[in-house]
């Protein structure tokens, strides 16, 4: 406990240089911009900007990129409340009550509540991360290859178990990610895999290109299809509205705490911010005495999803830092960044790269405070950017995506691949194939495979290594339990009834 506080103060020393503060500011502003623009989100925004950080020091780079992430989390709320367009998937639940409030002329209150709850959720999640992460990392130092593979198995099984899409689509999507990760030169045997004589793809498929295509171009195609006509409301935030809203918020502390807990839990186990925000909204609706009025513009209906989304987004970095397993697509992109900067994610990071880890954690405190102030003071600008017609902003975003894809390897082929991934992303979204497992598998594919291979070599090819001691055995058992959770929960009598009731709503 004391050690963590010491380390944190050391982290503040690292983060509080003027360069890092500047990167933080740039990151937040870019992040909010990315959050409000259609087709650019946390994951592909960070992916596009990642190549620009190759020459920076890893600490400054991660501070800037993680601040983009916080900015995008804040930015999503602006579009949801003012335009009924969730800028990010995790802000969908914010539109339910945020937009009706804006229509009633309470946009300022809704936005203040959204930002304040985001800030609250994120802050608690960072505190949890500060004290929990070193413990998890210390524990994970005992892990061998079999345990690492088991933890990855748990990650992927929980995607299958917790998905709203059918389990087979999740598996298909995830395995495509693994297959794409395997393409190219196999570093262990030196053999070429699935290149079919094409020299250009010996390098393999880069996940950054995939992320830019799947999320960026795919989203632009969806926007084109739906037609882009904005009917936004204007927002005025003045200090009086902010103070009045703050006076009302303490009433909803139970909702806020519940949302934060749901968010932290869903962020650490890779459920992600999106399901966390829906779950928190659903719980608030059930337990609130005003539950029946939800959807008509209740302040509480904004507080619930925003605390959860931000708490989940923040705590998703915990497994990324301690185990090298990201809890969300954006965390996956940041993890890819670590590898590119030459850092090996995992428990050793806490031993060998103290400056980096604690600088990042300290920047999370600072970044959220700075971000909170920035979004509160600059809302009208962002709303104005949203009013730029799609026929101007759409092609600009495509151009930016193309540049982002090219700069990853200075390869022209990547721009063409990006477009392919864009079409795939569009079709997958429309057919309910989830994209997050594909991206995570593409990022983790090589690590999962090498953990699997090392375990197999240790055990001379016997799969029994995955239940050879209590640690690996219990992780594997948990993985299987989580994967079949939808089936198991049906067998529990009370649970089945509750689920039917939920489905009937």
């Amino acid at each position, binding site marked *: 406990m004391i050690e963590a506080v010491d380390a944190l103060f050391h982290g503040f020393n690292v983060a509080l240089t003027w360069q890092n503060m500047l990167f933080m500011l740039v990151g937040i502003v870019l992040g909010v911009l990315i959050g409000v623009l259609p087709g650019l989100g946390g994951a592909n925004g960070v992916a596009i900007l990642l190549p620009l950080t190759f020459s920076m020091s890893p600490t400054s780079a991660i501070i800037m990129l993680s601040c983009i992430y916080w900015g995008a989390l804040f930015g999503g709320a602006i579009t949801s409340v003012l335009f009924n367009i969730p800028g990010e998937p995790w802000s969908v639940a914010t539109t339910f009550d945020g937009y009706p409030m804006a229509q009633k002329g309470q946009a300022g209150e809704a936005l203040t509540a959204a930002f304040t709850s985001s800030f609250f959720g994120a802050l608690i999640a960072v505190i949890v991360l500060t004290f929990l992460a070193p413990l998890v990392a210390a524990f994970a130092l005992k892990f061998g290859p079999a345990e690492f593979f088991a933890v990855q198995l748990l990650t992927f099984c929980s995607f299958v178990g917790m998905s709203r899409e059918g389990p087979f689509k999740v*598996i298909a999507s995830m*395995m495509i990610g693994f297959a794409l990760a395997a393409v190219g030169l196999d570093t262990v045997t030196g053999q070429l895999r*699935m290149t079919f004589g094409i020299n250009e793809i010996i390098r393999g498929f880069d996940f950054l290109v995939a992320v830019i295509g799947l999320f960026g171009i795919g989203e632009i195609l969806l926007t084109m299809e739906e037609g882009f006509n904005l009917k936004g409301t204007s927002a005025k935030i003045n200090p009086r509205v902010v103070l009045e809203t703050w006076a009302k918020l303490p009433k909803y502390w139970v909702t806020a705490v519940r949302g934060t807990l749901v968010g932290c839990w869903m962020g650490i186990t890779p459920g992600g911010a999106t399901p966390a925000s829906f779950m928190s909204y659903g719980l608030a609706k059930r337990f609130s005495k005003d539950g029946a009025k939800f959807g008509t513009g209740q302040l509480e209906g904004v507080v619930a999803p925003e605390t959860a989304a931000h708490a989940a987004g923040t705590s998703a970095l915990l497994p990324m830092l301690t185990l090298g397993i990201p809890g969300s697509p954006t965390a996956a992109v940041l993890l890819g960044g670590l590898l590119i900067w030459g850092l090996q994610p995992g428990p050793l990071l806490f031993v060998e790269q103290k400056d980096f880890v604690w600088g990042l954690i300290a920047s999370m405190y600072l970044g959220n405070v700075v971000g909170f102030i920035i979004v509160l003071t600059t809302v009208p600008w962002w709303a104005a950017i949203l009013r730029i017609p799609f026929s101007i902003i759409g092609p600009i975003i*495509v151009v930016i995506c193309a540049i982002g894809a090219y700069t990853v390897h200075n390869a022209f082929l990547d721009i063409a691949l990006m477009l392919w991934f864009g079409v795939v992303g569009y079709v997958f979204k429309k057919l309910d194939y989830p994209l997050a497992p594909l991206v995570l598998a593409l990022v983790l594919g090589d690590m999962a495979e090498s953990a699997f291979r090392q375990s197999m070599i240790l055990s001379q*090819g016997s799969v029994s290594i995955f239940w050879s001691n209590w640690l690996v055995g219990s992780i594997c058992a948990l993985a299987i339990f989580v994967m079949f959770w939808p089936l198991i929960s049906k067998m529990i009598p009370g649970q089945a009834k509750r689920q039917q009731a939920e489905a009937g709503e």
Partner: protein
Amino acid sequence: MNLERGTISTRTMEITVALLIMGLGAVVMYDSWRIGARWGEYGPQAGYFPFYVGVMIFAASAIVFLQAVFSRKPRQPFAEPSQLKSIMTLLVPTIIYIGVVYAIGIYIASAIYLAYFMRVLGRYPWRTIAPIAICVPAALFVLFEIWFLVPLPKGPVEDFFGY
């Protein structure tokens, strides 16, 4: 439910995509088997892990395929003709754009691409189009070539100016 002519139904699309993914799974299995998917002298061969990935791709998409074929859900549109048309108005110029980037570099290509969209989709007058179509690529040029020193694809026009 009768769908408008030219509409692709969700069921058709589900089946097509599932078949394509099954094909992908088969390719993965085939190539992994080719390079060796068994236990080698020193451990698993290069195709060991990907082979089972291929098996799972094939199996999972085969189930999705069967679910779609025997689905009793009412027919739903995947995309109406008008929607397909607006997708194509973005997709076709973007494919051409990428070809042009390859030929003459990204800056000039982007200027043409932006101008095309604003003219055809937005129906803006040229005096609105010109500043945006020129300033955006110029700003990108300054940002990448001068500030961050990241070279992007260039062509004869940039050569002329000495870059």
